[in-house]
């Protein structure tokens, strides 16, 4: 018990030194709670079109009003936050997974493979990714489903993790403890999993959050052009509909303000989280802002 308390104190003390991490985690947690508690209190079916009166301003019945299609916007916000978070986290995880595999292949084994992987990620990094995703998404027949959206976004979110991991592996593999591990008879896979991975954990965490933020950014960007999951009330699609139905000009601020605020909060949260994790991974950055 005492040990646990001591440990918690340690975490609390660290959070005081790293306020960015603390505020980032709090913002993200608040959004997750909003989604979880929201889906318990408000029925998600109210987020579907034609379930309420159209174009209602906020009232006791509809706390955030309804849009032109009669969606209850409070329910839309709750469902949408969940969907957008899901796209980001899953696409970020896939991107990180690919990044781990490619980064280790490239950094640890080197050689021709390294040239190809590094070249491919360099080419893709200089290209404006959004327009590449536009080509991909616009060629898909029919309606884009949530899983498809995740795959589309994930397909181009592996380059930054790959580069970050490769760079770390390159410096780490020359360290003495890796040589010792090899001499003591570990094979390459064991060295990677048992020696390199644990040391890379903070980097992996930071890369994961960065990849998630990138994926959310890309998915919302695509939604802005109408290339998101058209049948689902994600935050990006909600803004798309509000723009295409001229919500601002019609004075329907309750349609576009809530998703804008939530998306902005999400990005600020992810940004603070990345900065906080960077500080753990890269002690030289401490004493930052």
């Amino acid at each position, binding site marked *: 018990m005492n040990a646990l308390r001591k440990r918690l104190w340690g975490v609390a003390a660290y959070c005081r030194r790293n306020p960015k991490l603390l505020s980032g985690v709090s913002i993200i947690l608040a959004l997750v709670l909003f989604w979880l508690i929201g889906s318990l209190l408000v029925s998600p079916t109210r987020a579907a079109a034609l379930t309420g009166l159209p174009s209602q301003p906020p009232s006791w019945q509809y706390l955030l009003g309804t849009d032109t299609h009669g969606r209850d916007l409070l329910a839309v916000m709750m469902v949408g936050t969940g969907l957008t978070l899901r796209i980001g986290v899953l696409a970020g995880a896939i991107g990180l997974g690919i990044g781990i595999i490619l980064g280790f292949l490239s950094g640890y084994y080197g050689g021709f493979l390294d040239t190809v992987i590094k070249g491919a990620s360099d080419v893709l990094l200089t290209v*404006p990714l959004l327009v590449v995703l*536009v*080509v991909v998404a616009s060629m898909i*027949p029919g309606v884009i489903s949530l899983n498809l959206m995740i795959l589309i976004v994930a397909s181009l979110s592996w380059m930054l993790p790959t580069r970050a991991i490769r760079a770390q592996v390159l410096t780490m593999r020359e360290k003495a403890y890796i040589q010792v591990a090899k001499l003591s008879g570990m094979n390459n896979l064991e060295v990677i999993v048992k020696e390199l991975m644990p040391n890379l954990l903070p980097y992996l965490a930071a890369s994961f959050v960065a990849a998630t933020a990138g994926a959310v950014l890309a998915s919302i*960007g695509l939604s802005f052009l*109408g290339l998101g999951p058209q049948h689902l009330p994600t935050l990006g699609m909600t803004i798309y509909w509000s723009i295409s139905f001229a919500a601002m000009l019609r004075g329907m601020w309750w349609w576009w303000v809530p998703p804008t605020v939530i998306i902005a909060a999400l990005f600020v949260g992810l940004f603070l989280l990345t900065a906080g994790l960077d500080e753990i991974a890269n002690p030289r950055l401490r004493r930052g802002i």
Partner: protein
Amino acid sequence: MTISYLLKRLGFFVLVIWVAATFIFFLPRLAKRNPIVERMSETAQAAGFIGEGLAEMQKDWEAKFGLDKPLWKQYQYYLRDTLRLDFGYSLAYYPAKVVDQMMRALPWTIGLFGMATLISVVLGSLAGALLAWPKAPRFLQYLLPFFLTLSAVPYYLMGLILLFLFAFIIRIFPLGGGYSVAVAPSLSFPFILDILRHSVLPGLALVLGGVGFWALQMRAMMVVGLEEDYITFAEAKGLGGKRIFLRYALRNVLLPQATSLALSLGMMISGAILVEVVFGYPGLGTLLLKAVSGFDYNLINGVVFIIIIIIAVATLLMDVLYPWLDPRISYGRRMR
């Protein structure tokens, strides 16, 4: 700078363009969407459905666009046409050619994006450098966290908010578009003023979103740069603060900033495109939105390709100018 570095860099440029062109060519052919059939059935439905002869018509059109030839032949033609920037006809606005539509939109995007990038990099770098400078005013210290938070918010959301605040609530700026409908486009003073008025809000969205990022980077490099021996030496010589700041400290840390600018151009233009959509600015972004919503396959490919080219050319220019900016760098030459 040596010839071999230049050749290598040019090779990379050609590689990027070729990969992009090839990708744009093969991807639609992997997908099972046929724009000709889609457009024909749309037209047929609009005209009252006549089922007869559609198959022959489809064959005819495919022959006209060269789609009946073997794939490698099509690819060959495609590469040749792409080299000439010929993307064929727009499918949704048929008699218009893709290239004409793009050329009409291009100056708007380059103007807005170029100016906004320039302003945000210069302002951000200067602010960041001053943040690390001990004699700088204190209030800057409090501005950085604010702008840094703003830079986490995507440009287009910033655009929406600015549009609401300064065009809808306080009506000092127009609600969108590139110029007023009432003003005839000409090279006169009122028209230029009108264009500038229309570009303030979209430009501001891009600048506000970028300044914090550049300031943070610059500050980090300036902190390291100020500890160099040549700064101490300059101080010991008794040089003025302004001179040390501009000529000794700033000049030396400007170069890494140029590198990171080259790396983030792609990200930034993606944001600029979406800002155009928010404001209905008549550039490539709005054109892309029109192309996507009309499933105008040729127009989508053209716009995407031209954006990739803009960024590739900008990166190439920066990389070629980089050694010229910094005399210490000489790629490919051996150290003596």
